């Protein structure tokens, strides 16, 4: 029953996104909404490894950025359609996740976190030195013609990102409720105990890392088209990683709804702050909220909600 409810909810949400995109709502709503939805995908993807299994990934920007750049390469070389770009970006992101995982997930402790930071900066340096995709100065991109039912390209990208967000949420939920999620939670609580009770820890971690990387890569693919421009410094910014880490922490890492809540809340606040105050305050907002939640409500909004449910009963 709850299975049915979930899927009906997903379809309703997608139709709602499609409806708003076809309606006459203000263009800026889609411009800002796209970024918020990107954060929903990124934080949901981060939570699959970081929240369920407890392996912290600081390199969200690397997966996201490589996704963007694979889309750009495909677009520049073959004029590939957006769907192909997204699929390729997901493949590249997944492959990177698998590689990093293979290299460091055999080790316990902080090595994985360190390696993800390293990957981020290595990817940035590679792209800075690759002339084909514009190097350090970046590359201007000409958007193709917008497809039939949509009024503008931003609206179409908004719907595409909404679809990606719903896919990410479904994948996260599928992982969470099944045996994979139980295995990952066992790894987070005690890796030794999990291993000795027969949980294939390395394979599960690799699987989570690959899926998480693929989703992050897919989230990066439409970004160059959204901006009509790509440049390494902002694409591989450490801020993607910090946000993707802060949002699930604030929303609650135990449940798939946590990162969604966190991303919607924090992403909207960021967009409002960008418009009303300034772009630089953004990062400060993320930092202050993260510290406040870690100290006051370590289980996030979802945890607060659960506590409130229990006490009001």
């Amino acid at each position, binding site marked *: 029953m709850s299975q049915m409810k979930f899927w009906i909810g997903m379809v309703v949400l997608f139709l709602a996104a499609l409806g708003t995109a076809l309606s006459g709502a203000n263009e800026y709503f889609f411009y800002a909404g796209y970024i918020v939805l990107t954060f929903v995908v990124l934080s949901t993807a981060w939570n699959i490894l970081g929240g369920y299994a407890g392996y912290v990934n600081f390199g969200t920007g690397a997966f996201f950025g490589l996704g963007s750049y694979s889309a750009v390469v495909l677009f520049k070389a073959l004029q590939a359609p957006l769907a192909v770009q997204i699929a390729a970006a997901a493949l590249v992101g997944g492959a990177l996740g698998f590689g990093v995982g293979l*290299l*460091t997930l055999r*080790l316990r402790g902080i*090595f994985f976190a*360190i*390696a993800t*930071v*390293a*990957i981020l*900066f*290595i990817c*940035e*340096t*590679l792209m*800075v*030195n690759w002339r084909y995709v514009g190097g*350090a100065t970046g590359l201007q991109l000409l958007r193709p013609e917008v497809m039939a039912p949509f009024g503008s390209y931003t609206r179409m990208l908004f719907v595409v990102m909404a679809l990606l967000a719903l896919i990410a949420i479904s994948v996260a939920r599928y992982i969470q409720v099944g045996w994979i999620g139980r295995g990952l939670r066992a790894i987070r609580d005690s890796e030794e105990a999990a291993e000795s009770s027969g949980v294939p820890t390395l394979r599960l971690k690799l699987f989570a890392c690959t899926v998480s990387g693929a989703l992050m890569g897919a989230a990066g693919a439409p970004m160059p088209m959204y901006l009509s421009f790509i440049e390494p410094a902002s694409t591989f910014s*450490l801020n993607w990683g910090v946000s993707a880490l802060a949002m699930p922490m604030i929303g609650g890492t135990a449940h798939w709804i946590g990162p969604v809540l966190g991303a919607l809340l924090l992403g909207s606040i960021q967009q409002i702050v960008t418009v009303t105050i300034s772009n630089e305050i953004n990062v400060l907002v993320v930092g202050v909220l993260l510290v406040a939640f870690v100290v006051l409500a370590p289980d996030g909004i979802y945890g607060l909600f659960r506590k409130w449910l229990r006490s009001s009963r």
Partner: protein
Amino acid sequence: VQAPYIGSSLELGDYRIPYRMLVAFGVALVLTFALTIYLSKTFTGRAIKAVAQDEPALRLMGANPVRIKQWAFGIATGVSVLAGAMLIIIGPVEPAMDRLYIGRTFCVVVLAGLGSMTGTLAAGLILGVAESLVLIHPSLGASWAPAVAFGLLLLVLGVRPQGLFGR
């Protein structure tokens, strides 16, 4: 920032070593050896090492792991602040310098092996020489320099995760 030793340098035959570099190098050496002695000789120092190995065992010995960790974090912050202060006599500083140092720090620590104090000296030298080599290499140059620290780091993680000098 003004100091009498900034601007002058020690001349050894063909080589010129600026005194400001020597001062920073000396402070780094003194700090490393002071920390090594502190960690191996004093009670708190040994407790810091113990808390990394086995927390319940440390609690059984009558020390409070949380207090030890707070103390260790304080020392770590203090030492990195000193390092930051030395930076101003080496060259210009600006707020966005963080990225370079995240990489170099991680690289040196992993290369040395987590917890090895004297190892960091050797690892720091290795990284410094490697970065300078890439910097003056005709076909690589400055745009590749940031990748050195991280590439070295990944290499060590893949081949020898306990570090060159770790147990």
